[in-house]
């Protein structure tokens, strides 16, 4: 039995980006907020000391910052007819754990989704015809639009100190930025990072070919920055221990470097770490969330009643909590009814490797979001008529730092071990670069999340089951955008190129992307979405579920900027709309 605690105004599940932002906004509005986090309290000074953080074995190989699969994992299969098996070591993606969440070990790439994305289905039907979207895709509008999203993107970037160069301001187009972005109300808070050789070479070539390269928007700040919460970040030093690592230099934005140092000082806020939430409790009719039940590190169970419940964990846990708490109707691919678990989507990661003889890229210099990119082949920035697919990818060179265990690029045909392999790694280490194409992944009726019927976690709860494979649409798209990327690569005149378009079936072993989205999506229609445009659960007005779980599909961009914007959007809706009429759906 759970011990019942005194009630609070709001409880927030998860203290990563979304949870920390919402908690801070609600506390500033005068609410008493309890944040509950399944992992440890993380802190730059204590956990990410520069003298010990540069440890590839500990962080990249042994995945210290990631959720322990013994605590909680997922099961996976490609199709509904298969039996799913549990993932016992993270491969395809890297769920985080502890305060800051996956925002501690992210790369820092901070795109805004384009205006068309928020009404993707309508946009494609308008441009290519009402019947143009194939049945294998369940694309949807988000129920919101650019004008509603823009102020919250702006708020997130100002908290994160995001560096970059505007391509489109409301006042007009700017040189040097991304011409395809939506009009921004203000420029980036900090100027673009400096570039290393590989991105510079790529950008020069892309420009010669008529494309429009721009600095990748990056929440690794380029100069000392103090955000509106009073928290200060230091400039990125290109140390090369970035993606998969916590930042020792206070340069990579995360909840722990930008929000929590200020939030934890506020009297109305309390963080409970090492506390794993078991369920969202509801009243007998299921019309009102009454709080949460969680288990602490000693195995004791606690019930925390709250007037408002905000679930802001990682995509997987958001959806699993909704399934185990019987919120909404579980999605059934046979009937295509139900919304909880619907429209799970991923990212289609492609790349082209370039082996040179005469270049030295100093690849150990880098950061997760240092780089140059083009968007000429992303999303609907090019004409898809007659191509047989929709979507596209963000094409870019982002040298994240070539650490000694993992960064051993060798051309095809090189032995996998022995003296010839060693020689090849020496020959190619400094003279190899890669162009990535982080491409869209469009949702499909057969890709969904559900509770696994067989496997359970240590607390006896069913694991979350992923049923996912790349669609024909996405595989054709991958071939197309990778060929376009390879054209640029050939123009750069390396000795050899190796193009790696994503091919099916989805393989859970090699790392591809942690951008898992959907499963509890936002929209205007309760028949096809779980939350409204304020991230408020249809039919449970005092429950808000926030994160990439709300994306109806995934464009060719990294999700974090949009997760941050949605967190500000939900917080704004709670403070300025919901609290005026609590207990009701926001009109």
């Amino acid at each position, binding site marked *: 039995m759970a011990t019942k605690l005194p009630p609070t105004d709001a409880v927030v599940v998860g203290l990563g980006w979304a949870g920390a932002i919402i908690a801070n906004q609600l506390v500033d509005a005068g609410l008493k907020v309890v944040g509950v986090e399944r992992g440890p309290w993380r802190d*730059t*000074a*204590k956990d990410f*000391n*520069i*003298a*010990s953080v540069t440890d590839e074995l500990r962080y990249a190989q042994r995945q210290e910052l990631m959720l322990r699969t013994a605590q909680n994992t997922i099961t996976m299969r490609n199709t509904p007819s298969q039996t799913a098996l549990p993932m016992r070591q993270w491969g395809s993606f890297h769920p985080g754990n502890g305060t800051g969440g996956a925002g501690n070990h992210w790369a820092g790439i901070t795109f805004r989704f384009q205006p068309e994305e928020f009404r993707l289905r309508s946009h494609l039907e308008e441009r290519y015809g009402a019947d143009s979207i194939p049945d294998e895709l369940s694309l949807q509008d988000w129920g919101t639009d650019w004008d509603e999203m823009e102020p919250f993107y702006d708020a997130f970037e100002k908290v994160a100190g995001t560096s970059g160069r505007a391509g489109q301001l409301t006042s007009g187009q700017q040189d040097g930025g991304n011409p395809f972005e939506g009009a921004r109300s203000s420029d980036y808070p900090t100027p673009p990072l400096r570039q290393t050789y590989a991105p510079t070479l790529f950008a020069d070539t892309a420009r010669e070919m008529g494309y429009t390269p721009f600095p990748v928007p990056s929440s690794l700040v380029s100069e*000392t920055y*103090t955000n509106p*919460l*009073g*928290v*200060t*970040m*230091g*400039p990125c*030093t290109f*140390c090369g221990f970035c993606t998969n690592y916590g930042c*020792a*230099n*206070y340069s990579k934005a995360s909840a722990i470097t930008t929000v929590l*140092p*200020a939030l934890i*000082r506020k009297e109305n806020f309390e963080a409970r770490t090492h506390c794993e939430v078991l369920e969202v409790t509801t009243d007998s009719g299921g019309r009102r969330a009454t709080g949460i039940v969680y288990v602490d590190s000693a195995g004791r169970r606690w019930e925390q009643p709250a007037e408002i419940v905000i679930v802001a964990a990682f995509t997987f846990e958001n959806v699993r909590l909704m399934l185990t708490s019987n919120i909404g109707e579980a999605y059934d691919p046979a009937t295509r009814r139900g919304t909880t678990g619907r429209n799970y989507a991923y990212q289609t990661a492609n790349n082209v490797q370039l082996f040179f003889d005469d270049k030295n890229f100093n690849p150990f210099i880098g950061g997760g979001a240092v780089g140059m990119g083009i968007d000429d082949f992303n999303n609907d920035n090019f004409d898809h008529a007659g191509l047989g697919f929709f979507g596209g990818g963000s094409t870019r060179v982002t040298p994240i730092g070539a650490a000694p265990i993992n960064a051993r690029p060798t051309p095809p045909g090189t032995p996998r071990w022995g003296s010839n392999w060693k020689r090849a790694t020496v020959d190619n280490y400094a003279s190899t670069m890669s162009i990535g194409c982080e491409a869209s992944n469009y949702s499909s009726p057969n890709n969904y999340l559900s509770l696994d019927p067989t496997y359970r976690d240590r607390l006896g709860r069913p694991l979350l089951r992923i049923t996912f494979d790349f669609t024909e649409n996405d595989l054709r798209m991958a071939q197309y955008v990778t060929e376009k990327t390879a054209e640029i690569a050939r123009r750069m005149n390396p000795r050899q190129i190796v193009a790696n378009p994503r091919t099916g079936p989805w393989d859970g072993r090699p790392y591809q992307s942690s951008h898992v989205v959907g499963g509890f999506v936002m929209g205007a229609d309760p028949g096809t979405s779980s939350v409204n445009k304020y991230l408020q659960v249809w039919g449970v007005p005092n429950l808000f579920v926030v994160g990439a779980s709300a994306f109806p599909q995934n464009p060719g961009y990294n999700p974090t900027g949009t997760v941050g914007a949605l967190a500000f959007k939900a917080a704004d809706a709670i403070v300025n709309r919901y609290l005026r009429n609590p207990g009701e759906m926001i009109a």
Partner: protein
Amino acid sequence: MKTLTGFALALLPLSAWAASTEFQDIERGRYISVLGDCAACHTVDDDQPLAGGVPLETPFGTLIAPNITPDAATGLGRWNFEDFKAAMTEGVGRGGYHLYPAMPYPSYTLMEERDIRDLWAYLQTVTPVENDVDANQLPFPFSVRQVMLGWNLLNFDGRRFEPDPEQSDEINRGAYLVESLGHCGTCHTPRNFMGGEGGDKFSGASIEGWYAPNITPNRHVGIGNWSEEELVEYLQTGGNRYAFASGPMADEVHHSSQHWTEDDLYAVARYLLSGAGVDAADWDREPPEPLAEDNAQVRAGSHIYFDRCSGCHTPNGGGEPGIFPQLASNALLNSANTDSLIRVVLAGSRPVATDAKPTAPAMPAFAWNLSDDDVANVLTFVRNSWGNAAPAVSASEVADMRETLESE
């Protein structure tokens, strides 16, 4: 008439010791307690303010700050104002026992009567906490409180604060705050062999394994390079471009100076930077020449600096304002005493976090991967680069601090 006289007579002795219950007096007293930083020693748990229990390591042994809540059995509940005033100004507790000067009565004796009275009024309003503190943990013979009689004779003059008519009201206010309530000299003035303030005033001193730096207007080893704004910023927010408050000073900012009024902080800054309280002959000295670039320690240290330090402190020692202190022209690096410098390189340091500066960026610990020679060399390099000049640091100094830290 008779009745009235009797009434008046009855009131008189009462008014002599009863604490004010007026809000403005109590609130003023609360601010006096902040200025005096009573909490630094008397508060262990923020939920039980002033209930005592903070151990103070002195060269003579350990003292534990007593409970000063109005609890009758274990606090000051049986004290009256005269008892309290005697403790503050004469170092004598209720019943006549002698306090040890870890309680800075040699500074508080300068307090104005009204401030003592209001502070007393405030202390009556603090929640009484039953917490029996055995304050005196000193070894014999220091445990015998009578020894303080002789100490007071030699080290304590019991004078009250006298404003200097030559100086502005603001400087005099600063003097009062620094000399009396702020008791800055308790840490920043060297002590003589008896633990009394001796040596050059404000010229810096060791305290609890840290170095409380020189706060004279000397530009090379003191705070003469700091602007008034920078000194106020440091006291108010816990950091400025040269330093973040760490060690005992972090507690001071946390409990005390971040809550001071801006007027009081500026008064302190003007007083300290004017040099009004110190004898120019004691601090106005020419800086030494830096060690040559080809000095073996400087050269070895420069390599370590560029590998291990320059990522944050930048290659030219400029630092990053608000997050990584500048090392160039930083007087804190030039002091003869290297306790704090060696300590923060070996053990790292987490400075104070304030609402104004919540980041509290940490200096990482290098004890596990820099040898005594490495630490000595890198400190010798930064102490002799970019406008700094100071004697070389020896590996044996580092070894001593390493031993101290391991025993902590």
